[in-house]
């Protein structure tokens, strides 16, 4: 439903606003790399604008910090109504590896609602393009939650019944992991 809504609302061009709320600049460099002619994200109609008032999409890098949370919220409120937020990088998605330190409040979604997540530290430029393509509806997302359940013990228990005589030797048959 969100995909249809996005395609209807945003049409062909997304204007992005690039907000860094305390990241290390790695994701910024990857985002700027995406805008260069080699990756050329302008073929999807994506254009970088300087003001959140002109933007459809906010690209968030860096965690929500104690000092910048309010400014980030103000920038989000300044964007006109159909708006998307991308959290780019591990800091924006989950708070970064300094998630438990004093100035870090946590992921960006604690302050503003986030629509799309692009994890990675930093994500590759291809990963960012893939996230944009997922949002626009060009490709489907690949990841899904995985749940494994062990049905038997990984280390086989020793049973004397599995001892087999083979010539002069006695071999334990289920000895894959012992």
């Amino acid at each position, binding site marked *: 439903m969100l995909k249809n809504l996005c395609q209807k609302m945003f049409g062909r061009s997304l204007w992005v606003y690039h907000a860094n709320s305390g990241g290390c600049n790695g994701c910024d460099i990857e985002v700027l790399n995406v805008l260069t002619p080699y990756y050329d994200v302008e073929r999807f109609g994506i254009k970088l604008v300087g003001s959140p008032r002109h933007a459809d999409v906010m690209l968030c890098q860096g965690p929500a910090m104690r000092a910048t949370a309010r400014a980030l919220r103000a920038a989000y409120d300044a964007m006109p109504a159909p708006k998307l937020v991308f959290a780019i990088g*591990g800091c924006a998605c989950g708070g970064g590896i300094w998630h438990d330190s004093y100035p870090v409040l946590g992921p960006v979604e604690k302050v503003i609602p986030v629509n799309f*997540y692009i994890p990675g530290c930093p994500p590759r430029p291809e990963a960012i393009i893939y996230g944009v393509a997922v949002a626009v509806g060009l490709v489907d997302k690949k990841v899904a939650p995985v749940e494994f359940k062990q049905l038997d013990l990984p280390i086989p228990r020793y049973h004397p019944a599995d001892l087999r005589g083979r010539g002069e030797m006695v071999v334990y048959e289920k000895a894959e992991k012992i």
Partner: protein
Amino acid sequence: MSIASKLKEAMVGLKAGRVTLDYPAQPRPAPANFRGRPIFDAQKCIGCAGCANNCPAREILVFDVCQEIRILKYLGRRCTYCGRCADVCPEKAITMSHDFETATNKIGDIQQRLDLFMSTCQRCGRCFKETSPLEQLKLKGYRFDDLANERWIFRSRAYLETEPVVDDIKIELD
């Protein structure tokens, strides 16, 4: 700028041809030594929780339901793909894949959860050898990470039911 220099620039542009990648239409594989999302192999995992103890981002949670079953949960939100979990794994159950197309609209999509059988040590119940005596004191026995709130809980503090160990920081907005 003269017209000649403009023409020269145009010639350079024509000579180079098209350099833009056709990325989402054409696949572009990562280089051979690229580290992507870690993949956990439930068949090889013995549940030693070495990956959880070594993760710098504390993204691997361990929860012991009972003596026999241990839940290992990889969240992957702030994972930096550093590969320390794969390094430390004694059974090589974790492989760093080349998977980087992990963009999603739900953050729970990247998590992996393993339900593991644990054998019982006949002498002490459950013990794993750590390097230093301090580490042994800290990490021996059961682990109670908060799976519902997806938080890592340090073992040396007592886990009290009445008051939460880690509280949400209150955000002051305007």
